[in-house]
């Protein structure tokens, strides 16, 4: 008897779109908590390193999300311990696509929506805005460029947002587990 179980990914309802050069991509960056008596630049080059199993860096396209939805997505996502991420421990930075496309080691920049079903599992919301930046191994020069863009253009790149304003909304969505628009087809008209 063939015991191989074929796992079928649900068909994504969203088309893959061409990311326009004039648009922006958001990158969520965790604020590290290492105790230090000396100043650290943020975000550092280490925030742009590929982790085990990753082949690209994740961004969210501003055509489908705003800063608030970025934080909500974080707040509905589980960490490696199956607990909700501490979304207040993140800062969001905004990159012009025009800049990302000038990275010397750029391989591709694609719209890659994440769809895990309707509803998707609790802790794993769908993400219509998900986009992937592939720069090979993200070598030292690429990490420097991504870090320095934020620091040298802090006025434009840093997304200042009052997270407290959506705390109640995130709590309400968490209480609904995976019965939220984020776990379905992203229809926010309800």
């Amino acid at each position: 008897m063939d015991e191989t179980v074929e796992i079928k990914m649900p068909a994504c309802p969203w088309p893959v779109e061409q990311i326009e050069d004039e648009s922006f991509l958001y990158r969520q960056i965790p604020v590290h908590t290492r105790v230090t008596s000396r100043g650290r630049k943020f975000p550092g080059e280490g925030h742009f390193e590929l982790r085990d199993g990753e082949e690209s860096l994740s961004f969210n396209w501003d055509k489908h999300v705003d800063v608030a939805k970025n934080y909500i997505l974080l707040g509905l996502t589980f960490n490696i311990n199956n607990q909700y991420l501490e979304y207040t421990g993140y800062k969001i930075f905004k990159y012009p696509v025009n800049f990302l496309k000038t990275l010397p080691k750029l391989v591709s920049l694609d719209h890659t929506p994440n769809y895990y079903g309707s509803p998707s599992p609790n802790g794993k919301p769908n993400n219509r805005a998900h986009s992937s930046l592939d720069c090979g191994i993200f070598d030292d020069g690429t990490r420097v460029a991504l870090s320095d863009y934020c620091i040298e253009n802090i006025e434009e790149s840093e997304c200042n947002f009052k997270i407290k304003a959506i705390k109640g909304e995130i709590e309400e969505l968490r209480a609904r587990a995976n019965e939220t628009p984020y776990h379905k087809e992203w229809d926010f008209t309800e």
Partner: protein
Amino acid sequence: MKHLTFDPKSFLKTTKHTDTQDSDTQSKVSARAWYDRKYIGYEIAELSEAKDNNEKPPITFKILDRQFTIHSDLYDIADEIRDSRNILDLKDGWDHSTGKAVRPELYFKCIDFLLMYTNYIHKIYNIVIDAPEINLIPSGSIDLSWRTQGARMLVNLKYKDNEFLATFYGYHKSNMLPHEGFIDILKVDESMAVWMKQLK
């Protein structure tokens, strides 16, 4: 040769780093901590007389069982190294994600590498380069990151395939030409040392 808005001799002629000279720059200097990164990175040519007469004792400290002795001119490097020692305390998952702990051997290779170049440039060229940030990153490797007026540089030291490796990327701000590749962590590459003189 002076590159900054204050006279670095003030460090050498006085007994406390917080002392400043009587000049127009005194108020600016005293308003900041003496170890402010903005004031680090200067060329100490023409100061040999002052050094001879006012040599400060070297800076010594221990990290685990390793004793470090660092020339007093390199106090900013010493300060960053002391500050980096808590990298050794970080466990797997230190970034609340998949961040790996550092191998202690890698940490000490990194410190030895940093001191090898800073000591060499100080001794041979009489230049004190700026202190880099010493950062553990999620793969368990270590970044040395310089952002100075003269140059930008990132050195990444890692343990891979049973050996310690270092890669680097940088450019001088005068020409912005990228410079990248592998770097030997065991002995000084003279051309790299010359390039690194701009890290001030």
